[in-house]
């Protein structure tokens, strides 16, 4: 047997180390469809608890929307369950191309290529379009999947301080001699809920002849007046060269992602991106579901408008309750607790009160910036948010953090 006791012991030591360091991740089993109200088994084996979910990326409440579920059923009937092939052998159906065209239309781009996930899109895109003569200049807080994609690409890589435009400009000057320069950012940053200054970034990219890449995973469907994304919010719909996004969050929440943008760049991905070439694409029922999602979102702005109202209500409520928030206007609303253990305790307290929200701490966020990240949905009704606010108030009182400043909380609990 090759898996010797020594090998097993080595791995169990590593895992014990993670547990001791408080870094061990545990799943909570949800027994209901994804929605505002869910039924959770936690810890494993305990009886089911009904809680309000405020930590899903289900921004538009479409994960279990009856029209989307119905469309997926119909897609299953008309196009089958799986393709048993990658795209370029015999794994492309009419609906895959239909969805690509719809995404281009929705995002205002020239062309789109689907990927099994946005993780795969980000893993494949840089290597497909850049070479060692080029440079990638990324915001220091971009998502982990972009970092992996950058690692897989032979182009030179540099970073700029988060949202610091002067620093970005100095990097564009420093690397003026590269064949191509690509500026890389998230549209909405998932941990802080702030948005990239795409108007300024687009202007810098024009000035220094650089390509602009934006990951819109936490933006597509609801940021901007008609929900097209961060590029709509900043009035630069035609200035972003590559968008990647996911269908695993606001756009139905099942799975899948894409690269969308200039048609030559998309074609380069079709010819060269490895996760596209060597992995099955999105399954037919999911494709049918995403098509329905885009139909719903193109018909009117009802859902993103409701999300905006819910978000305002939520931010105002938490602020009035006396909690410290990160500024912003996206549905990602971090409640700052600074101390890692406090974030875990508050999360547990909320759960006891019937509210499901998770504490994030180092290394997921910087040291001393532990928080509960709350995420608002168009699937929430005001009564959900009121109940969740009550829970925050109750737990906040217990830990004596209401009306306290950042410094006061740190003085009480440490960083």
């Amino acid at each position, binding site marked *: 047997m090759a898996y010797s006791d020594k090998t097993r012991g080595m791995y169990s030591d590593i895992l014990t180390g993670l547990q001791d360091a408080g870094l061990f991740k545990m799943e909570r089993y949800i027994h209901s469809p994804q929605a505002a109200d869910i039924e959770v088994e936690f810890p494993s084996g305990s009886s089911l608890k009904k809680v309000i979910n405020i930590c899903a990326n289900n921004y538009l409440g479409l994960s279990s929307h009856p029209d989307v579920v119905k469309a997926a059923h119909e897609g299953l009937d008309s196009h089958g369950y799986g393709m048993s092939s990658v795209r370029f052998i015999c794994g492309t159906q009419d609906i895959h191309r239909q969805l690509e065209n719809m995404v281009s239309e929705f995002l205002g781009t020239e062309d789109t290529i689907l990927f099994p996930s946005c993780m795969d899109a980000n893993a494949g895109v840089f290597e497909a379009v850049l070479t060692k003569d080029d440079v990638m200049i990324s915001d220091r807080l971009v998502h982990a999947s972009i970092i992996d994609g950058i690692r897989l690409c032979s182009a030179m*890589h540099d*970073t700029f301080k988060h949202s610091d435009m002067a620093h970005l400009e100095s990097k564009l000057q420093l*690397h003026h001699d590269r064949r191509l320069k690509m500026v890389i950012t998230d549209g909405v940053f998932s941990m802080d809920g702030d948005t990239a200054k795409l108007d300024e970034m687009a202007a810098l990219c024009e000035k220094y002849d650089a390509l602009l890449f934006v990951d819109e995973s936490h933006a597509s469907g609801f940021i901007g007046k008609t929900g097209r994304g961060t590029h709509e919010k900043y009035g630069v719909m035609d200035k972003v060269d590559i968008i990647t996004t996911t269908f695993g969050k606001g756009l139905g929440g099942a799975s899948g992602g894409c690269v969308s943008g200039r048609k030559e760049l998309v074609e380069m991905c079709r010819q060269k991106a490895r996760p596209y070439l060597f992995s099955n694409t999105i399954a037919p029922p999911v494709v049918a579901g995403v098509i329905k999602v885009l139909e719903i979102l193109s018909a009117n702005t009802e859902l993103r408008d409701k999300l905006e109202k819910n978000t305002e209500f939520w931010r105002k409520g938490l602020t009035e309750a006396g909690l410290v928030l990160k500024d912003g206007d996206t549905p990602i609303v971090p409640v700052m607790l600074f101390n890692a253990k406090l974030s875990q305790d508050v999360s547990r307290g909320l759960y006891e009160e019937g509210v499901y929200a998770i504490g994030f701490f180092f290394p997921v966020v910087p040291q001393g910036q532990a928080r509960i990240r709350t995420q608002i949905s168009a699937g929430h009704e005001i009564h959900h948010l009121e109940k969740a606010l009550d829970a925050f108030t109750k737990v906040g009182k217990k830990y004596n953090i209401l009306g306290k400043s950042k410094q006061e909380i740190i003085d009480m609990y440490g960083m």
Partner: protein
Amino acid sequence: MEEMLEVVREYIIEEYVEDDSEVTFDTPLISGGIVDSFSMVSLKRFLENKYNISIPDDKATPEAFDSVNKICVLVKEYIA
């Protein structure tokens, strides 16, 4: 050498340190998590421009860049 040490230290603080942590000539930069190996390239390009040298990629390793002192030793090798 003194002057080069200061120049390099200042650049590192300006470029990479976002709180008020201290950087000495021996502070581990890459293994200490101050400079992520990803952002090393601008340090390399800064040194090359500043001292008018060219450091081969295989010499610009995370180990060779791991403190202000080590960086200056490396740079000296390439100054004619």
